[in-house]
């Protein structure tokens, strides 16, 4: 099964390889224009011209990785080209909706709101006073804007729906026939989730109940990871490397685990079998450890996916930044470094393709293992003991 998947991945990566070499050159020009913008805007504000001229790789990378109210595509003649996204604010019970284009890339205030440029609220929408200065006393309004990440989320979800609803249609249209077209792409993955994740972790008797969730998180993570690897418009957003996204999925896993826990699961937590009594009475040490374990499991799920995907994006952007850091010294050094950077970039992208799959697999597998622990019937407490601790 894995061999089959790797074969599929090989095909996909071959496709992406071509794609990426194209894409990386685009990314390179993007960074280039960004560098010019950075220097232009900071030159106006900062007195020290020398430090402003330098290309700030860290700032550029963070700007690419975090969420924003506009979808920056590239710079054209020093002007940023971006898609303005709708701003939806809940300000003291009042709903405010307008386009983020009114902010002029954060330079202007609109309807008494402005994008904070510095400080702890950097990038957030804050209220401004009549004279244009930031109102420090006013509460920061609740921001439900369709940000870059939200739009990317919608695009990813739409893609997933298109793929799987059409696959489902094919399944119902040609029952009991060999898979064809989109079916043959998704079927090995679906069977992989079923036969190598759900059944071994949960068991043949109860896995069916959890299949919809496991398949959904697997494909949600996998497809959004892949979208994140495409460096231009519909992709390129660090969606699965966003804590809010991973947190929601981790909470779903936690809730499903908690609500499907059977008697022996709770007994296991409150009165862990096979542990000396003095670890439970008078100080309930083991129950405390078990309850902490309940929380750490989804927490680790959340952090692992976030860290892996974010790290991949940072490294890729880092390699690209190298060109401009060296280019800052002298143009020819930048050009000389670029082949090496691109080579490493391609290598990292291929590695990220693998990571995209592995992280989807790990998230689904660990969720399945937690569900399996929750529904497992302990016939022989000592023999079965503790599950694999992750």
């Amino acid at each position, binding site marked *: 099964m894995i061999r089959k998947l790797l074969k599929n991945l090989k095909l996909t990566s071959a496709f992406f390889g071509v794609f990426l070499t194209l894409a990386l050159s685009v990314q390179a020009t993007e960074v280039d224009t960004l560098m010019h913008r950075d220097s232009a805007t900071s030159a106006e504000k900062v007195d020290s011209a020398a430090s402003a001229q330098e290309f700030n790789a860290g700032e550029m990378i*963070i700007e690419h*990785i*975090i*969420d924003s109210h506009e979808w920056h595509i590239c710079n054209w003649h020093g002007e940023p080209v971006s898609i303005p996204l709708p701003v*939806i604010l809940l300000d003291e019970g009042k709903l405010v909706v307008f386009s983020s284009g009114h902010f002029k890339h954060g330079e202007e205030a609109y309807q008494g709101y402005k994008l904070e440029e510095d400080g702890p609220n*950097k*990038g957030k929408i804050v209220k401004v006073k009549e004279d244009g200065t930031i109102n420090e006393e006013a509460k920061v309004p*609740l*921001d*439900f*804007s*369709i*940000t870059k*990440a*939200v739009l990317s*989320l*919608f695009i990813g*979800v739409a893609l*997933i*729906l298109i793929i*799987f*609803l059409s*696959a*489902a249609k094919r*399944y*119902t249209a040609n*029952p*009991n*026939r060999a898979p064809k077209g989109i079916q043959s792409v998704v*079927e090995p993955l*679906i*069977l992989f989730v*079923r036969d190598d994740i759900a059944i071994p972790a949960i068991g043949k008797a109860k896995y*069916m109940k959890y*299949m*919809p*969730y496991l*398949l*959904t998180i697997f494909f*949600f993570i996998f497809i959004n990871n892949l979208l994140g690897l495409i460096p231009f418009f519909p992709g390129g957003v660090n969606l699965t490397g*966003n*804590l*809010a*996204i991973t*947190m*929601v*999925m981790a909470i*779903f896993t936690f809730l499903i685990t908690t609500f499907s826990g059977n008697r022996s699961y709770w007994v296991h937590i409150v009165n862990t079998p096979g542990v000396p009594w003095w670890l439970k009475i008078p100080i309930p040490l083991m129950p405390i450890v078990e309850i902490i374990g309940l929380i750490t499991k989804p927490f680790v799920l959340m952090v692992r996916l976030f860290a892996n995907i*974010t790290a991949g994006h940072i490294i890729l952007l880092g390699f690209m930044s190298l060109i401009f850091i060296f280019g800052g010294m002298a143009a020819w050094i930048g050009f000389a470094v670029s082949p090496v950077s691109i080579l490493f970039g391609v290598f990292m992208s291929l590695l990220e393709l693998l990571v995209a799959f592995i992280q989807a697999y790990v998230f689904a597998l660990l969720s399945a293992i937690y569900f399996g622990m929750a529904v497992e019937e302990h016939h022989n407490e000592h023999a079965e003991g503790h599950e694999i601790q992750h």
Partner: protein
Amino acid sequence: MELVKVDIGLLFWMTLTFGILLFILGKYAWKPIMKMLHEREESIDKALNAAEDAKKEMLKLKAGNEQLLLEAKEERDALLRDARKVKESIIEEARAKANEEANRIIENARESIQYEKLAAINDLKNQIASISIEIAEKLLGQELSNKEKQKELTEKLLKEVKIN
């Protein structure tokens, strides 16, 4: 660290979107797909089992056919053997009958030969008698002049005539 901040907005949209995605996929994609996959696996299993059964049936049939062929061969052999026996017995019988017939014919012939022989002998005897009488007449014509000689002659003739 902006990187590890969780935005309430994104949290809200993700929960909403992910929940809807879970619902739609669960109802309209995973349910039919899992059901169809299961059904297909079952139908493949069934088809394979049916093929296996058919193969076994074929083997059985083949064995039956061979058995039948063997029996037919044996029957044919038995029939041939019987036919040969019948043929031989018919020939034997015919031969016996022919022998008997031949023997009977021979016997008949022998009897008739015997009869003819006796007849011929009788005939011969009569002729000899008549010839003897003629001879005797002639001799008697000569010899009857002498009485002694007559008697002698008669006796001698009588003795001679007793052939059989």
